[in-house]
């Protein structure tokens, strides 16, 4: 028996609904249809009345989530594609993110964002928005890279008393598989070492963890041991684990699928440079998507995002510096 990343998300929601009557799911097509990606398959049938189809109104969906949270519910909002969350952006960053600080009333909501590129997705079904949400105080931003983390972190997201932006990667939905669901997990806020190594650190998250691991395999064949750090959550950002890894390796490459200006890779490098400059044997490097909207055609798309090949190339260059 095996379970996919997408099925893990479905199972986590089923468990959250079963364990806690305060949990409900609200989003477009999530009801009887089971969601655009089937992440809520059969949940409306199993948990009658707590899995609701929403009108195409991301602003009102998010506003309603905040109101329901104030009244003691724990809503999970499925945004059909992360890209569309910009319509609900105001409610997320101004309403949900500021509520606790302003009023001392917590705002336990989960916003599921099917994120990232898949071939053929194009400019409006491929975006990675973790950087822009991480910018706002009052939000937790999760970026699970494994089936196990997709499951355990989603359950943790529901349990957390703050608004959580849950960036689940569409590219991992179907092909990433695990034997079984986890029974224990690292707490949110802790990065993990996805592969140990001594020659260089690659810090990355979400789907790029797998590109980095493939690149590390390639480089191992050339005699270089690359350490891959999976951030798991980008807000909070586990600076300690990053710094400890850089202390071991002296070299840092930071990889993200999001656009290059600012963002997670820039934040990681800023922290390492200001806190651990003396740990570095070479200038830290970063690799991101190209600085254009995400292209539609597979040839262009594959060249737009970092891949195992471009990560390996960047790593080789850094090893020579």
């Amino acid at each position, binding site marked *: 028996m095996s379970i996919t990343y997408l099925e893990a998300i479905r199972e986590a929601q089923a468990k959250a609904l079963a364990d806690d009557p305060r949990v409900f799911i609200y989003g477009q097509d999530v009801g009887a249809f089971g969601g655009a990606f089937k992440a809520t398959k059969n949940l409306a049938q199993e948990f009658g009345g707590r899995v609701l189809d929403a009108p195409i109104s991301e602003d009102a969906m998010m*506003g*309603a989530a905040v*109101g329901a949270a104030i009244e*003691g*519910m724990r809503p999970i909002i499925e945004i059909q594609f992360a890209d569309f969350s910009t319509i609900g952006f105001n409610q997320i960053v101004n309403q949900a993110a500021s509520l606790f600080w302003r009023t001392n*009333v917590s705002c336990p909501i989960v916003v599921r964002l099917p994120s990232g590129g898949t071939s053929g997705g194009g400019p409006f079904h491929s975006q990675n928005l973790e950087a822009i949400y991480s910018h706002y105080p*009052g939000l937790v931003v999760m970026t699970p890279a494994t089936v196990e983390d997709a499951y355990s972190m989603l359950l943790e997201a529901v349990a957390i008393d703050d608004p959580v932006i849950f960036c689940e990667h569409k590219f991992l939905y179907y092909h990433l598989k695990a034997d079984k669901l986890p029974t224990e997990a690292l707490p949110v*806020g802790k990065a993990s070492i996805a592969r140990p190594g001594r020659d260089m650190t690659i810090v990355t998250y979400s789907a790029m963890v797998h590109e980095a691991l493939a690149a590390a395999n390639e480089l191992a064949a050339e005699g270089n041991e690359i350490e891959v750090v999976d951030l798991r959550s980008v807000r909070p950002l586990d600076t300690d684990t990053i710094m400890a890894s850089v202390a071991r390796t002296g070299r840092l490459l930071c990889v993200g699928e999001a656009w290059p200006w600012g963002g997670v890779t820039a934040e990681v490098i800023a922290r390492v440079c200001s806190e651990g400059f003396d740990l570095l044997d070479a200038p830290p490097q970063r690799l991101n998507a190209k600085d254009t909207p995400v292209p539609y055609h597979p040839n262009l798309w594959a060249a737009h995002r970092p891949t195992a090949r471009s990560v390996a190339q960047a790593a080789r260059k850094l090893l020579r510096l």
Partner: protein
Amino acid sequence: MLLARVLDDKFASLYRGGKIHGGVFLGRGQEALSVSIGLSLRKGDIFAPLIRDAAGRLAFGETVLEAVRTYLGSPLGPMRARDGNVHRGRPKDGLLPMISHLGAMISVVNGALMAHRFKGISGTVGAACIGDGATSTGAFHEAINQAAVERLPLVLVIANNEYAYSTPTSRQFACENLVDRVTGYGVEGHALDGNNLETCLKTVQEAVGRARRGEGPQMIVARLLRLCGHGEHDDAHYVDPLLKKESYARDCLKLAEEHLLRQGWAESRDLETWRNEAVQQVEEAVAIVQREPAPDPYKENWCALASKHLSEGNNPAA
């Protein structure tokens, strides 16, 4: 509404004396409508007032002290000096603190009402206040449509006060009357002159009653004139003098007082006594708050998360 007027006047004078940081936004001319909302709601209901709803807030249960503490930035106020002026409330008591983005509070009321439904609480109502300007936002449209789809007990009160800051309604919408939109949304509508207390009380109570009985969302459009600037920094020189002659532009407080005298329900000395009592109540609150300590940045925890262990704190590398 008299207390709200007196409180607003005090805020205006404190503002002119340089005692208030940031803006001051008054409800002058809108008290009859606003107080009718507060009086029509009861404990357990949800209320999302806007910037001109001091009267409704007081009627719903906010205290003068809370209002003054928020305007003067007292750490003992409900917003603990982290937010100020009209951005105040007590969410757990159903009084939602507005954000500045117009139309955004309506769907929050919807969500609270959905929560009541999930929890099996029936008979509660949610009221949201907005002005003519907010009817142009996507948030307004999304939220009233959402309330209609879910058939929520929402009472949406639109104070059409002729101007959104300086923009006249002719640049805001092109329909004859905002209440005509109800057919498109599938909700019930009520139009009235917003400066007549009796009409306001009757209409708002009826709409709230209908919502409470499960008859779906209600939209009230009240015509009135804002008898002040957008904020106290604004002299409202742009207001068309002809509008000031309209019957709906007369001061609702004066009209209500005249009505009381005409009906023989009060004499002028009663009105004077009530006003003096209100002034005293407000002055006492201001005197209390002015003696309270100012917020101390060193005592502030600078933590935006309820989950303290996930907060990265003030130092990004901490």
